[in-house]
């Protein structure tokens, strides 16, 4: 066990972070990167000798509402960023997942959402976090401050190390600052509800909606028992009020064969999508293993059929392209998930499970040997001595 007060390094600026990393490297120490701790359960369990925390790297560096861009230090609580954006009617486009429902505490920070590429239901129309992060500063394993990307929307100068670090779980470097492009917050939203569809019907309805010209920005299905005793399929439309009404009406007509019933709006709609975003309905029971599976929506039903009773509960996001599901927390169940997925293609991430299971199996989809070798070489290109988050993504890397 790491004793907190002696073991956690808390640099107050990037220069201090560089010095601390260089020193740790010189001493042969390994550092587990921590932020607000709200996603600490993602990835393999930490193996480092000390912690390196971003919590003192706090504050919005700039927010240019007229340019729709914001830069914040890595330890800045997401709540502070969202309050600043709210004051100008803006938002982070990708609807970041809040890990607290699943992992049970902590404070979501800017660095954490970049490191985990935490993207919610709007990723179907606005892209993932990696599509909205346009610049990063980080400290590499040499203890050097590295700048990549910038503050403009279009920038193709040099290799894009921004995306590479987005979702890298801190294995390549210690993030110190991130720059986001923003979107105006939609004036209104409406959610069409269709009850009692089975999985195949729900996928058909969501596919029809997403292939329609009406700009659907969320497509999810909750199974029976998630808030209601029957299944519910949801389709969200956002924009200026008149446009939302117009498109919702058109979409209702286009989906007539599926029997769309109700339209939620305002806070009701927002509450619902927050719950879908955070997979609230799968948070309990807490001892279950939770998976996030990415696959072609058209193959989701077959995948679940192959998985059979191993899937204890599931819900669809992104039109069925994302399947959240829970299983018993055993290696056999994990093997069943990966085996059921193999014929479909795609990838399964073990999002939450007891430490022992996350240490025993591949948390991320295993890579073919040439990619695994590349992962090692790219890791070494940033962090040759493996100072950062050793073993967090893949065992031994």
């Amino acid at each position: 066990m790491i004793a907190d007060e002696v073991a956690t390094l808390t640099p107050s600026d990037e220069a201090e972070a560089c010095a601390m990393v260089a020193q740790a490297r010189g001493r042969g120490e390994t550092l587990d990167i921590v932020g607000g701790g709200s996603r600490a359960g993602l990835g393999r369990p930490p193996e480092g000798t000390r912690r390196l925390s971003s919590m003192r790297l706090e504050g919005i560096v700039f927010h240019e509402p007229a340019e729709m861009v914001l830069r914040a230090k890595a330890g800045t609580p997401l709540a502070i960023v969202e309050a600043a954006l709210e004051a100008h009617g803006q938002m982070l486009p990708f609807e970041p997942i809040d890990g607290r429902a699943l992992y049970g505490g902590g404070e979501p920070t800017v660095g954490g959402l970049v490191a985990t590429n935490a993207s919610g239901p709007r990723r179907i129309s606005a892209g993932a976090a990696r599509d909205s992060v346009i610049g990063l500063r980080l400290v590499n394993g040499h203890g050097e401050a590295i700048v990549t990307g910038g503050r403009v929307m279009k920038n193709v100068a040099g290799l894009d190390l921004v995306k590479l670090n987005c979702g890298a779980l801190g294995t390549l470097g210690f993030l110190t600052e991130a720059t986001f492009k923003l979107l105006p917050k939609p004036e209104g939203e409406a959610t069409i509800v269709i009850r009692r569809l089975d999985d195949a019907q729900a996928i058909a309805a969501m596919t029809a909606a997403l292939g329609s010209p009406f700009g659907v920005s969320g497509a999810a299905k909750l199974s029976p028992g998630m808030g209601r005793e029957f299944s519910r399929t949801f389709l969200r439309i956002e924009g200026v009020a008149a446009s939302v009404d117009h498109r919702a009406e058109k979409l209702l007509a286009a989906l007539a064969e599926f029997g769309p019933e109700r339209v939620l709006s305002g806070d009701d709609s927002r509450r619902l999508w927050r719950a879908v975003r955070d997979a609230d309905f799968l948070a309990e029971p807490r001892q279950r293993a939770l998976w996030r599976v990415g696959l072609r929506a058209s193959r989701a039903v077959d995948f679940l059929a192959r998985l059979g009773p191993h899937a204890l509960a599931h819900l669809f996001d992104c039109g069925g392209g994302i399947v959240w599901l829970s299983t018993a927390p055993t290696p056999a169940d994990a093997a069943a998930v990966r085996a059921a997925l193999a014929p479909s293609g795609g990838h399964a991430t073990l999002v939450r499970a007891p430490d022992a299971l996350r240490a025993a199996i591949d948390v991320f989809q295993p890579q073919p040997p040439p990619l695994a070798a590349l992962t090692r070489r790219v890791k070494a290109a940033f962090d040759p001595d493996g100072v950062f988050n050793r073993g967090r993504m893949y065992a031994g890397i």
Partner: protein
Amino acid sequence: MAQIAFPPPDPTILARRDQILAGLAAILPADALIADLAGRRAFETDALTAYRRLPLAVVLPRTVDEVAAIMRFCRDAAVNVVARGAGTSLSGGAIPQEDAIVLGLSKMNRILEINLADRFARVEAGVTNLAISEAVSADGFFYAPDPSSQLACTIGGNVGMNSGGAHCLKYGVTVNNLLGVRLVTLDGDILELGGAEPDAAGLDWLGLVCGSEGQLGIVVEATVKLIRAAEGARPVLFGFDSCADASRCVAAIIGAGIVPVAMEYLDRPAIAICEAFAHAGYPLDVEAMLIVEVEGGEAEMAAELARIAAIAKAHGMRVMRESMSAMESAQIWKGRKSAFGATGRVADYICMDGTVPTGRLPEALQRVGEICAGYGLRVANVFHAGDGNMHPLILYDVNDPVEQQKAEAAGMEVLKMSVALGGSLTGEHGVGIEKRDLMSCQFGAADLAQQKRVRAAFDPAAQLNPAKVFPLEGRGA
């Protein structure tokens, strides 16, 4: 004399030319290898036509296995490889050198899969950008990034440069519309990166490869996002009596929280050039013009246009022309998209590609004018204003070496200015040979060294598209 330097060719490679040709001939069908002088000439430059170098040989494989065999051979024989799509790079990204072979993807031009239910297309690298949209337009879908060269440029080249286009303001650039690639590495490994399934696990290889300018491997296949088109789309022209008013209007529209599908800027010289070519009905008596496109249902478009027009009026908009038909809309876009070609009829030009924060556009445009005037050169501005991606076309006479040097010097000053204002050297054309020596203006030594180490993880001896992107030894600006 030209300013852009080329490294001296490696004499040990040149000396082995016969052996290298024999080796390539042994692994390729006869018609996939071009060794004769006339044949190689066709590949000595791209759209940065002021520069040319004759490649050692040209290979035009038809299959992924052939590409893998070529790569393994070139690794073992220590031969440099320059990937090429349609050769439309404006930054010299596909210009070869004497000690390199050109690996052209033009014969790999099949659309492999169209899946409208899961909304993606999988195509070979040599398929043109426009061909993807054309293949799905009857079903109401399209592929969003639309570079001006979309009729000719290939998806492989688009991935290499992370290309943009006018409609990227709403839909994003190539990397935001790319779902997967098949990459052949120097070792001949065939890697599937990303795919039709959302949020691939592990490191974001796709994001790294997109825009890597052919230095990490050969993209032989791309899986791209297909988007269902909105109910309707309508471009509107706004004319202004001053460039400053027009550029402030751009910043004000973005600042008001409106994201049109596209927002393009043309100044007086650009309007005249495009109108003479396309007869699009552009107003000729204004100093600057914006093309703003909105989409959606009729009522939606009307409401959004009303908001935009009100902002434009407040910024001195004097002329407004709304497209009344699909044909008129097509004409309006034809004028804009033919800007580069139409300018080529008037004069030789170099096209800059710097990006600035939209709030700095008025200042940046003024500086572009001053810089070019300082060299006694004419300039036409036609660019993607909504995302601050400027394209000053600096006009010169290619047969006048002094003027060419002036044009390039002016261009470099414009790009340095873009970086100084908080922007980037390049928004969508890539670094290529053109801007590599300016990279040290935008990045520090440690930043560039980090990028190079990542590149070396794929290509330790820098054989793939060598002498591009990074400053040549001793030449950082």
